[in-house]
């Protein structure tokens, strides 16, 4: 009975693994096919004559390196700014007494309820008016503050003893030193989680760059890859899938490296 159950679990697990891994395998196989083979054997998992021609076509159609660089710079800037701003704000909200503290905290919490899908029309109008559409400013500044990040930093700082900060002040540390040199390293696990989740989210983001750009000046890689299909004459799945591999590989590598931290961050632990 126990053995039978164990075998059922293994069979089910194999089935689920197939359901999630076969699509990736097909993506990779398709990207290695030639135009002739894609027409003759579109569904096979093993390319008969593997070729990198589809990748060459992707590089010829869009500036992959440039778009990847823009994407990585944008995602890193956002994640770093969120941490840089969440630390002092979280410190004030967790540790200092001042008039209006409750109001400030409620404002931060209220902002948690407003996703970018609600704000994009007015923000687009604002940037259009100031000529900031198609600039890094339009991609980064709306996300420079994370209400969630501020909240999480505040929660983490609640458990730091006041004496630690008082001791640092006695030693002559300025507030900037207290926030970035003492509390920053103390909150390392929280900040690493924040960085990872934010970086991955904005590296992948399609929505915001789509509505804030109209030309290629700051076009990010997800947009470029999506355009690959829209521009394609006929359905050239090998080229689209090659683009897909290029887009997903960096995130999947990062995922393989930091799976444990990422899982913990998503599970909110």
């Amino acid at each position, binding site marked *: 009975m126990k053995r039978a159950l164990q075998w059922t679990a293994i069979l089910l697990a194999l089935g689920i693994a197939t359901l999630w891994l076969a699509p990736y395998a097909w993506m990779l196989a398709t990207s290695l096919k030639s135009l002739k083979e894609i027409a003759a054997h579109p569904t096979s998992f093993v390319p008969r004559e593997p070729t990198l021609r589809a990748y060459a076509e992707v590089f010829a159609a869009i500036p992959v390196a440039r778009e990847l660089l823009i994407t990585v710079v944008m995602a890193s800037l956002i994640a770093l700014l969120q941490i840089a701003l969440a630390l002092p704000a979280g410190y*004030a909200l967790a540790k200092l007494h001042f008039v209006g503290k409750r109001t400030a905290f409620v404002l931060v919490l209220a902002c948690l309820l407003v996703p970018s899908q609600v704000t994009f029309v007015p923000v687009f109008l604002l940037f259009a008016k100031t000529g900031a559409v198609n600039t890094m400013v339009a991609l980064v500044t709306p996300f420079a503050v994370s209400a969630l990040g501020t909240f999480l930093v505040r929660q983490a700082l609640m458990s730091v003893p006041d004496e630690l900060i008082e001791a640092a002040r006695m030693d002559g540390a300025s507030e900037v030193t207290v926030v970035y040199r003492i509390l920053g390293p103390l909150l390392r696990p929280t900040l690493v989680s924040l960085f990872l989740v934010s970086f991955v989210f904005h590296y992948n983001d399609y929505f915001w760059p*789509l509505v804030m750009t109209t030309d290629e000046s700051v076009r990010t890689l997800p947009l470029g890859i999506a355009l690959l299909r829209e521009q394609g004459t006929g359905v050239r799945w090998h080229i689209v899938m090659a683009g897909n591999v290029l887009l997903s590989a960096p995130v999947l590598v990062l995922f393989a490296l930091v799976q444990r931290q990422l899982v913990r961050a998503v599970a909110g632990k």
Partner: protein
Amino acid sequence: MRPRKPWHPAALLGPSLLLLAVFVVFPVALAALASLYSWDLLTPPEFVGLANYRALAEGGELLGVALRTLGFSVLVVTGAMTLGLAIALLVHRPGRLFALVRGAVFSAYVVSWVAVALLWMGLLDPDAGLVAAVLRALGLGRVGFLGDPDTVLATLAAVTVWKVTGYAMILFLAGLEAIPPVLHEAASLDGAGHWNRFRHVTWPTLGPTTAFVATTSLILSFQAFDVVRIMTQGGPARASTLFVYAIYEQVFLNLSVGKASALTVVFFTLLLALATLQLRAWRARGMS
């Protein structure tokens, strides 16, 4: 603690509050105001009162979009939660195979929406796609998937379930981790089988997790956009025009800022209603 200087709190919080005001509070107010104007971005805005709301409501557009989005969300939440819980229960055990399944299912959640949407467009392609080939091999007929107004919403929901099940699974796994093994041992000693242990120990202790996953994924799927923009552009016959896509269409394709803003206001109101539901679910679970 007392701030060292009276102006310190303002300096520490100022940048954050200013940015939140400019990019969150002000836009919400502006959307509410702009919804009362007719504005095509080229000529000056003209005050029209509630005409934008009326026009959207009379054509049945507003109700259609709202119901479609809600239907889509319910499909996604039901699918992702059921699968996520089932997979979590299955892979909540030691062994390399189960670790592989955990990683594989979660990886879809980490990969970009663009990649997932394009990948499934390829897989579902009626001629070149793998899914169509499998259906043919099984002797089943052609299914329209993305090309048929009757199946497009369910297809988009299925693709979304494939992408987000990993999120539900991770949270359920964390919930399962937190159940003290003593509870299961005690139930076993009392002669409870697998099903009864699930019903009387696992399921009730997972309550808060279930409520959290349900409400969070409801709110997130209500905001779905990428999958629509990439896979269907709202078609065929508007059968997959979800809320955010409808807003996007009004600004960028119809150049109607007023109608887009009116849609935004309704969308935000519905989101707030869902958020209240989320808070309630939390409190109810917290008290029990």
